[in-house]
């Protein structure tokens, strides 16, 4: 995440001093080591122009990539509560405060409404910088309200997952969000509305074991880690090295759990294409050129 923090600091510095120091404009790819300008990286939707490494990005970046320009943030007024009075090495309240300052997100998930190629949709996207994108009561509630909004306005749902799993500081409340979000998904299904699960690096734990794996269509970004138990835990359990490529998007695709692996630069077009079919009852009739030979 170092590159990203640097990138963020770069942005802040740039706005603060107007004239950015040149080195802030350059970002180094953690995979191939090549350097790329911030501007070019943005043009490439935060993928490396040389090796196609997909940089980890936050909700705002995904909204900018997916939506046709304008979008509206939803449910930002829902905030976390330290219901257990949880203290480990730090109090949970302090962790929350630090996460808010560090990320500019109000929680590990941000919901927004807008359009993807003119199709009205709701997107919920996670911020890995916010306590590891962990799922607490706010994530559960924001997803449920997002689904309510989808049902009210007959819109498809897209969840961009990026999470270390459960939020331990909310203990059993966190665990129950797996059931809560899934129960709500059955209501979206009953309303006949599509749900696209878009998994990014990393998607693990209780998020994978609930809504992330339940898309009508499961999409993943190339190279993303997608798992229940993280690689370190699995390695420690089996006491040997993991096979090459284990728990990647490509691995789960081969095993039959992912429908499509899509380059982030193509993702918007792919999602629109899928929605054109699944959501056809709520869309204007599509004009397609006849492909038959008559």
């Amino acid at each position: 995440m170092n590159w990203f923090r640097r990138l963020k600091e770069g942005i802040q510095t740039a706005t603060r001093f107007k004239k950015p120091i040149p080195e802030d404009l350059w970002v180094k790819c953690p995979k191939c080591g090549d350097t790329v300008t911030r501007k070019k990286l943005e043009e490439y939707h935060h993928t490396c122009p040389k090796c196609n490494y997909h940089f980890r990005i936050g909700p705002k970046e995904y909204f900018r990539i997916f939506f046709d320009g304008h979008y509206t943030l939803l449910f930002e007024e829902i905030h976390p509560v330290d219901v257990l009075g949880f203290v480990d090495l730090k109090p949970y309240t302090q962790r929350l405060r630090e996460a808010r300052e560090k990320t500019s997100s109000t929680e590990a998930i941000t919901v927004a409404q807008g359009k993807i190629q003119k199709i009205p949709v709701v997107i919920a996207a996670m911020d890995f910088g916010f306590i590891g994108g962990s799922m607490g009561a706010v994530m559960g509630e924001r997803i449920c309200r997002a689904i309510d909004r989808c049902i009210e306005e007959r819109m498809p749902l897209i969840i961009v997952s990026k999470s270390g799993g459960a939020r331990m500081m909310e203990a059993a409340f966190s665990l129950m969000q797996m059931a809560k979000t899934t129960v709500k998904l059955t209501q979206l299904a009953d309303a006949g509305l599509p749900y696209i699960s878009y998994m990014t690096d990393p998607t693990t734990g209780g998020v994978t074991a609930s809504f992330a794996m339940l898309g009508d269509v499961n999409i993943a970004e190339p190279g993303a880690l997608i798992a229940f138990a993280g690689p370190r835990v699995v390695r420690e359990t089996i006491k040997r090295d993991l096979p090459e490529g284990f728990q990647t998007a490509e691995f789960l695709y081969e095993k039959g759990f992912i429908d499509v692996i899509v380059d982030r630069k193509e993702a918007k077009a792919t999602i629109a294409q899928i929605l054109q079919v699944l959501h056809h009852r709520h869309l204007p009739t599509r004009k397609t050129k006849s492909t038959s030979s008559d």
Partner: protein
Amino acid sequence: MVFLEFEKPLEKLYTQLEKLKQIAQDGDIDMSDKIREVEQKIKKKQKEIYSSLTPWQRVQLSRHPQRPYTLYYIEKMTKYFVELHGDRCMGDDKAIVGGLAYLDQQPIVCIGHQKGINTKQRQLRNFGMAHPHGYRKALRLMKMAEKFAIPVVVFVDTPGAACGLEAEEFSVAQAIARNLYEMARLRTPILVYIIGEGASGGAIGIGVGDRVFMLENTWYSVISPESCSSILWRSWDHKEKAAEALKLTPKDMLQFGLIDEIVKEPPGGAHYQPEAMAKSLKKHIKKHIKELLEIPIDTLIQQRAEKYLNMGVYSIADQPSSDKTP
């Protein structure tokens, strides 16, 4: 009898009791007064120990090697039990068992995690840590219950889902997710009992129901105290602190409204009087099945949904957001 660290004072008394009984038997001497006296002492000591258990001690009790497991309860409580095997795809996972039975006059489908009762069995059962095909077997049995309008009774007792190459390769995450989804809308009553350990996705993966109960000496949380300690404290040594912080006891869970009721255990825990435990559990199950069967199925599913949709504490800030909902 296996005694845990904090039960050591009891061990002494039990040894004394055994000796007295032996003397009485061997010498044909009347020791009944002495025996009664020791028994009284045991009762008193038990009360003292078990009325002030720390969360960590309760976790230890939930893992007591002599604690009754799922198959014990099924055998004690039901008639005509037929265990059914396999997920019809990959194989038969021994960490989750299930089958058809009668609870007196009531047909039921029972499903539960199963731990082993000896070293060999423990390996075979993978310590109650289920693989994807275990969760998929459970789902198959639940769908069967739905088809034939039979209530489902679930026993949860797991330190977590299986962890390893196979579990990831065949996506235990997807298997758990699918179960949550199907249990949310299964058109037959589901009763869930936490009878030992209720850890994480591995527990809730068969644990969504109309009513969820915890036996007195059990725990239910998102992670085990040991793993929580290793992640948050970066050392395995803070499991007691983690157990406290997680608020994982039945009392806490009831107070949070995350479970419906606590089922009493005999003094000292279910393993002291397993038959009595099975008997009271059976009574409990029968009562609740009867209640649930009286609720029209659409109402039941709606109530089940609302139960879970209400779980979670958050605050709503005053300042207006960019959202225009009332």
